[in-house]
């Protein structure tokens, strides 16, 4: 059958339609339809409930988002989380991958150990980090009672920037393993001959990394960057569990604020507009990165 399909063009063989239909239907129903519907919703004062009339409001929801100080703060907090977590995850993940790629004994054990945080539940580790960073938590105990550096009353989660930094630590810790696996695969794909030739030319370790490894994993680097940036914009659980956006929405990120506006305030049009603003930012960043990497 595969041969038969191969012989005909896609237009000619309707059996292709049957094979693709379930996937196309699912994508249409659960991906494209909601996106289109949400785009439409962003121009309405969207009402839910029986016999409710939604009013067309043009760009009012978009104006409301830009005028909302909490939405602006949540965007800044998200960008702060992104700036802290994305480079740190890539650098640490790459470092671990570079170390592990050379190890022959127990390499699977090391991979497993570094990957464990990735498969651990977000909620569970967020609760653990909350305990570590709380006023009576492990970190304050360590700083005060073990190394006697502070008096033990540092409020890591009490105000905006320390709390955002604490949540970023969680994001970094949890993301290293994923980056390690991605970079490990990329490193293994670089032909060994390049390194052998470099050895003959007498290059040092930095030159090997700069001129062979880095160009060899450029595509993977771009992939990791784009995925991590999207992931940073989608961060929800660390904030929801560690601070709940408190105090006074100081630690809100876009997704927690979107959730609050959708389910607590029932402002569905507003939330749809906010989500499209975030999507647009993601697209702009991704296009910029693709161009930057292509140019090189």
């Amino acid at each position, binding site marked *: 059958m595969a041969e038969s399909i191969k012989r005909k063009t896609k237009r000619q063989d309707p059996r292709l339609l049957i094979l693709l239909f379930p996937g196309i239907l699912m994508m249409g129903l659960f991906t494209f339809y909601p996106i289109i519907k949400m785009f439409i919703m962003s121009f309405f004062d969207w009402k839910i409930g029986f016999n409710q009339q939604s009013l067309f409001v043009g760009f009012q929801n978009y104006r409301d988002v830009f005028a909302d100080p*909490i939405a602006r703060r949540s965007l800044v907090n998200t960008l702060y989380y992104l700036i802290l977590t994305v480079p740190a995850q890539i650098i640490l993940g790459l470092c671990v991958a570079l170390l592990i790629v050379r190890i022959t004994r127990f390499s699977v054990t090391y991979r497993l150990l570094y990957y464990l945080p990735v498969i651990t539940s977000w909620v569970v580790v967020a609760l653990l980090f909350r305990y570590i960073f709380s006023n009576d*938590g492990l970190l304050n105990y360590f700083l005060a009672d073990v190394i006697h550096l502070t008096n033990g009353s540092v409020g890591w989660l009490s105000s905006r920037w320390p709390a955002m930094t604490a949540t970023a630590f969680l994001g970094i810790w949890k993301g290293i393993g994923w980056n390690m696996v991605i970079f490990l695969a990329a490193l293994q794909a670089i032909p060994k001959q390049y390194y052998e030739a470099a050895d003959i030319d007498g290059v040092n370790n930095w030159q090997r990394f700069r001129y062979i490894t880095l160009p060899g994993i450029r595509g993977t680097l771009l992939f990791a960057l784009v995925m991590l940036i999207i992931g940073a914009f989608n961060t929800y659980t660390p904030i929801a569990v560690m601070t709940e956006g408190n*105090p*006074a929405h100081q*630690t809100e990120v876009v997704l927690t604020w979107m959730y609050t506006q959708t*389910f607590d305030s029932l402002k569905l049009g507003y939330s749809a507009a906010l989500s499209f603003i975030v999507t647009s930012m993601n697209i702009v960043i991704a296009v910029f990165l693709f161009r930057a990497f292509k140019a090189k």
Partner: protein
Amino acid sequence: MNSKNRRKGMIWALLIIMVAGLLSGCASEEPQVAGEPITITFWHNYDAGAGQQEVLNALIEEFQAENPGVVIDPLYLEWSALKNNVVAGATTRMLPDVLRGDIGFVPLFQSLNVLVEMDTSFDDYAKAAETIMDAPNSTAARGEHFYGLAANTNTKILYYNKDLVSTPPANLAEMWDIAEEISNDDVTGFVEAWMGGWNLCQYIWSNGGDVLSPDYSTAEGYINSPIAIDVIQRMADLHEAGAFNGPSIDPGAPGDTDGMGTGKYAMTIDGPWKAKDFATKYPDLNIGTMQMPAGDADSIGVLGGENFMMFESSDDAHKQAAWEFIKFMTAKDAQIEMAKVGQMPVNREALNSQEALDAMPLLPIFAEALETCRTRPVIPQWGDVSGIINTKATEAVLGLKPVKTALDEAAKEIDALLAK
């Protein structure tokens, strides 16, 4: 028909079957067949940890035995999940037949047009409502009609650690003074779990102020009145002195129950469930209770509790069976059983019964507090209004903004919300 056309025909038939198969999962409930039992879907947030779900299951069995044609299908959802599922179901019409949820849900759900107008739908609603206390049942009213029946009620009292507070306060001003006096590096005098309407209204009301105008049309001159400013300013001063805190003001601080239980907090004002929490988690805690201390005006707590609600998505047979279940759950026997697991009865007979009193030793204090407490504004926007109060009061308490500025902003934002 040649073979090519036949094959095309078969392919289209296959596609149609596949689509039909997929869509069949979205089909609505099958119509009721005569003689088959009616299944009532019941969403609730009865606390499993407090033993309430065990009692509920026993009551359901009893109800089903009395009503052989009805099966109750209960589903536990925590507070926000309960609300969110109704919000989602308001669009898809996938709603339960009965819900037992926060009294604040009534105006919200009614604004979505999903609730059954119960007083006009059932001839015996008035008769059933007569057995219920007026104040809790008033929370089910919107305009001239009732969209629910009170399930249980509560208000708040003062809990204090007797090892830290030797003499209970005579009034609110004294309560704040004691909080300041006893605070040190290890102890915070007073904990407030949140800073929204549920938590702050009681202080403003008890000092003679209010958060909204009596017709709920404006917050200007109410939430930013001199009385409200004084209340929040006192809290800000206490916070600066290390005598006032809470998990929403400081996410790194201990929770109110754990903080009280471990002696980090000395006083809190909360509902009847807190007594159960302390008894279960910290049985050795030397806890004292009393009515919320009076302010300049009186001791005016916030009325809390839950109501039973029904949904327009149910057919007539389900509505009638659901109504019978609600009447069963609000009758004396079921209310006494629920009192044994911490639910304050709304049924007049149950509230005055010796059995309920034996089950809830704090019932007399709460019953006294219920006489002077008030309902929060019964408006669909209350959740958002309460959220604004929380944000602005917290900003003021943390010193991010002067108290007057924060409350002026609150008034402006609330008025914009009320105008919609």
